[in-house]
């Protein structure tokens, strides 16, 4: 069970969080069909670092951008969703 440092609540157990989707798969309602298909129905699915969207469901209910390695599980950043994603 991961320990995720919520920018509001501090380090908390994964049991309080929900994984939502990779950041790249966020689809806005104005997206074209090909873009939607690309974002929603395909994935980079990297084995390694990945930017993801999580929610601190049972904590502050906030949405976070989490930079996480999908193999080592190392988390190098957990930012509020409205913060710019570092490139």
């Amino acid at each position, binding site marked *: 069970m991961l320990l995720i440092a919520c920018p509001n609540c501090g380090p908390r157990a994964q049991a309080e969080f929900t*994984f939502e989707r*990779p950041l790249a798969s966020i689809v806005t309602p104005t997206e074209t069909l090909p873009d939607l298909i690309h974002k929603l*129905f*395909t994935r*980079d*699915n990297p*084995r390694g670092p990945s930017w993801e969207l999580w929610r601190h469901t049972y904590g502050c209910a906030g949405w976070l951008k989490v930079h996480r390695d*999908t193999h080592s599980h190392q988390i190098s950043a957990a930012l509020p969703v409205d913060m710019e994603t570092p490139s």
Partner: protein
Amino acid sequence: MQRYSALSLLRGGLNGQKSWQRAWRDPAPKSHYDVIIIGGGGHGLATAYYLAKVHGVRNVAVLERSWIGGGNTGRNTTIVRSNYRQPALHNLFEFSLKLWEGMSDDLNYNVMFSQRGAMFLGHSDSDMIRLAERGDAMRAAGIDAEFMTMDQLRKKLPLLDLSDKARYPIVGALNQPRGGTARHDAVAWGYARAADALGVDVIQNCEVLGIDRVGGKVTGVQTTRGSIGADRVGICVAGNSGQVAAMADLRLPIESHLLQAFVSEPVKPMIDMVIMSQSIHAYVSQSDKGEIVMGGDPDLYPTYSQRGRPDRIEGVAGQCIALFPALSRLRMLRSWAGTTDMSFDGSPIIGTTPVDGLYLNGGWCYGGFKATPASGWTYAHTLAKGEPHALNAPFSLDRFETGATIDETGSGPMPHHR
């Protein structure tokens, strides 16, 4: 191939079991194959076997990055059944079940396919209606399915909690008598041995690192044991589909997640069937060695780690005890995890890809062991003919683009919602 039989064992006993040959060779890769299968799991090995046996394509290599059967084939809860609701699914899985029924003899390797019955418990009237719908759909397709009365349940599974104090009281069950379990490792080994005997090269410790293309057509693969040419290449790597497809610049409708399972210490027989439930997401069976094999929901986030979260196991333990209270004092002996390739409708993908000569078999989520023979059969057909078999035609890669998804649970495109 050296035949296995009771007699040959007896003979072996008299000579100190000294004369057994290797079950499969350890060949060096050739420079070119007609077909290369990437991935030596049950599916890849079965594909090679049926390519050689059914289609006469024998210049085939199975490339396995480590040891055959070490992927999800070697780490699943071994439940075999065809009790799906959607016709495309139950047709494929029923075909599979029929192949399971002949597998040990066909391969001359005892895969211990045990048809002790696979049962879904229902915990409410609405559960029972959904089970009836599933059962009726199966029966309409000629597949066995039958309701169990509470009395039958009590008799067959005396340790099941049938009281109304349960959080989800059991009110009935839908059984598939022909469902059951099989010895997972034996499936990989049996297919490897039989394929090897037909001339297939099973090459272990050979990781594919790249897919060679010339003018948009596949010409071979780069591996840790050098480059190997091929006319056709079939991806069959379960949890790593995305990684391997990326070598040909494909992005798949697949996300790699993780599913755990665990076993208890072995005891004498206590659970005689495979038990699943419509409301409690745990499944339980007892292996021939006596351990109780248990599993439940996946970990619900992308990972290649093969390390599960402990709270998941804790939850599944609670679910199993809720079904069988006597399990409380049994001890978990070992827990483990596998990387599952979650497709975006919960159904597999078997077919062609936009890359000429490249084929894909993946997206089995956490339910592909039962499909091993049918997956191999239809994939072999697709690889040999260049187009899908009727059974795998619905499972095309482009169905997400067109919208013709096959969503058994109706959970939608997010893998962690299923």
